[in-house]
């Protein structure tokens, strides 16, 4: 793993984000290497979600840019999108569709052609709920439907915003295990969470701290 850790997958260059006339962060720069598990931490309103959205290319920073393998993500959007798995606050799950249909759609739109949904849904403990409309599922199961994509992907860059929300203890451990494996295989995970993690230790975790900036 040591060799792959030299690769810089994603880097932020002098990112400045201004929301509602308030500076959330100013001239923020950092590199994310293959193998990194990065936690963005900071109080509510410090701009964690804004930073994740900028890194994913959903929001534009006020100034600065994000580089994917040394190329601006706005110029290499297709390549970047093909290597990015983003799970935001909103799960991206349609309540009018079943868990199986949701997963199938999400994978198809990401370009995967050959997959079996049943074993993937089994990974997130949704066996027996494949045919249920996700609108009828519990909050945790709804969330798991979205998370199921993590078990069938070859994207290197994972950006996950509060992945553990509404997930039970065992589920959190499974997710942590998955993140760890992904990072050890040369990927990277960028996340926010307010929960303590048990498997990913503080030594393994890299932290980027955002503070509430006062004028």
């Amino acid at each position, binding site marked *: 793993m040591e060799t792959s850790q030299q690769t810089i997958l994603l880097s932020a260059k002098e990112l400045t984000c*201004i*929301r*509602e*006339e*308030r*500076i959330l962060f100013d001239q923020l720069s950092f590199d994310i290497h293959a193998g990194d598990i990065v936690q963005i931490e900071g109080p509510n309103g410090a701009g964690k979600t804004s930073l994740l959205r900028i890194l994913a290319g959903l929001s*534009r920073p*006020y100034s600065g840019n994000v580089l994917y393998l040394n190329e601006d993500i*706005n110029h290499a959007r297709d390549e970047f999108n093909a290597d990015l798995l983003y799970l935001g606050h909103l799960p991206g799950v349609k309540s009018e569709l079943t868990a199986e249909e949701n997963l199938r759609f999400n994978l198809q739109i990401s370009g995967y052609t050959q997959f079996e949904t049943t074993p993937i849904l089994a990974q997130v403990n949704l066996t027996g709920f494949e045919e249920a409309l996700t609108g009828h599922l519990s909050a945790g199961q709804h969330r798991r439907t979205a998370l199921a994509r993590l078990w069938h992907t070859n994207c290197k860059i994972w950006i996950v915003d509060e992945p553990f929300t509404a997930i039970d203890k065992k589920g959190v451990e499974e997710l942590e295990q998955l993140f760890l494996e992904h990072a050890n295989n040369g990927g990277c995970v960028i996340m926010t969470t307010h929960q303590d993690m048990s498997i990913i230790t503080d030594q393994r975790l890299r932290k980027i701290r955002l503070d509430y900036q006062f*004028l």
Partner: protein
Amino acid sequence: MWKWLHPYADPQRAYQLSSKLLPWFSLLAISLIGIGTVWGLLFAPTDYQQGDSYRIIFIHVPAASMSMAAYMAMASAAFVGIVWQIKSADWMAAAIAPIGAVITFIALFTGAAWGKPMWGTWWVWDARLTSELVLLFLYLGVIALYASFEDKVLAARAAGILAIVGVINIPIIKYSVEWWSSLHQGSTIKITEKSAMPDSMLYPLLINILGFGLMIGALSLVRFKAEILARNSMRPWVRELAQAKGVK
């Protein structure tokens, strides 16, 4: 293009440039409109058919011709903003919109006021008046969209996209309205006939058209400067500027 534009992508440079340009625009606009209007209203000969009421064209025609030009300017600024990702250009587009709308309204209002003595009615569904009315709606759409966003950086970008969509549609709308009014000609009065205008009327008119253009430029610059300051209020250079002017 990019090389030429890039320095002014920086809001501070754009602000300084517009501060430098503003006095020239205002001075020229005031003197041209002054000359053109006084010439047109007092010294130009009386029209043998319309009497003195024709003199409203010294306001109406400049406003009408500049209303379209201002839309073009707004859409060009928006285009620059979107293609080269320059926020200042988006703000320029947003700054022009209300001014263009007011000019369009002036054109409509003076057109109606001219129509009353001419045709005995305030409004006719004439091709030019109708497309001017649609142009006003297009402006109002851009302004309303800009006003609806909380985040003004996004607001300017969204309004810019709408302005570009509008500018692609303007020729189609204009053409369709002209075609429509030619279909229903029986019920309308034709005012599109071109008559040779004596130079003594033409020159003040041209001077006023130029003056209106410069006035729109000057007003846009004022709004543009305000926009830059509002969007960058937390930047050090704006604070220094405010302190220098004694604002706390």
